[in-house]
């Protein structure tokens, strides 16, 4: 219980928007491309998809708001880059909630089997 405390307090504010941003097929597809580590321009990302430039831009902004993606100015265009930290954090948060359930269910097991 102790180990989750500081982290949970910090993260309860940010997890739901990250999950929500990930709950979309197009955004997952964009992330899959970006998670290779390369930087992509909006044009490059639009080329490989069936969507318009405007639609791709809109999805990138959603990802940028939750900091899963960062944009870097390069000359006249923006390049987009994957930022793994928020996803690593929600994964860690779920792992912690999961560990709490393991403890609780172990106590339930001894409670009903005694």
């Amino acid at each position, binding site marked *: *219980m*102790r180990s*989750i*405390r500081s982290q*949970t*307090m910090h993260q*309860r*504010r940010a*997890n*739901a928007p990250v*999950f*929500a941003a*990930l*709950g*979309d*097929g*197009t955004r*997952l*597809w964009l*992330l*899959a491309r970006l*998670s*290779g*580590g390369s930087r992509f321009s909006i044009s490059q990302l639009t080329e490989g998809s069936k969507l318009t430039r405007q639609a791709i831009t809109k999805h990138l902004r959603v990802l940028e708001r939750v900091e899963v993606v960062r944009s870097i100015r390069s000359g006249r265009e923006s390049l987009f880059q*994957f930022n*793994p930290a928020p*996803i*690593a954090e*929600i*994964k860690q948060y*779920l792992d*912690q*909630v*999961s560990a*709490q*359930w*393991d403890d*609780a*269910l172990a*106590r*339930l*097991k*001894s*409670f*009903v*089997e005694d």
Partner: protein
Amino acid sequence: MSDRIEKRIELKAPVLRVWKALTDYQQFGEWFRVNLDGPFVAGQVARGHMTYPGYEHLKWEAVVQAIEPEHLFSYTWHPYAVDPNFDYSKEPPTLVEFRLEKTAKGTLLLLTESGFDKIPIARRDEALRKNDGGWTQQIKNIEAHLEKHP
């Protein structure tokens, strides 16, 4: 990684015994380590205080959703709401479901906690259909990335 937590645990006890441990508020309190004010009633808020050593100052609160005898017990809550100064009521709650199945040796308990993304199921399914590679594969890709670049 997924947006839900799922656990399966085999209990060497009859279904009725497990059902009571889950839905009798005093028995629930014993193993969950919470001191509840009163019985669980579907549609109503259950309140109490944690009894976990060091966390006695924390309130425990859940809204009971379903009580289907010896089959399903569920509630919504804010998981591990450990900061007494933070108003968790503005956050989307998660849904906890305990399902019981009779087995040869006793009872199979299936626990799920879902709703971390607060996206209605219908909308999520639509998003998944549009996604050629599939949610699971994409998340695997992201996880692979995380392992390579911690």
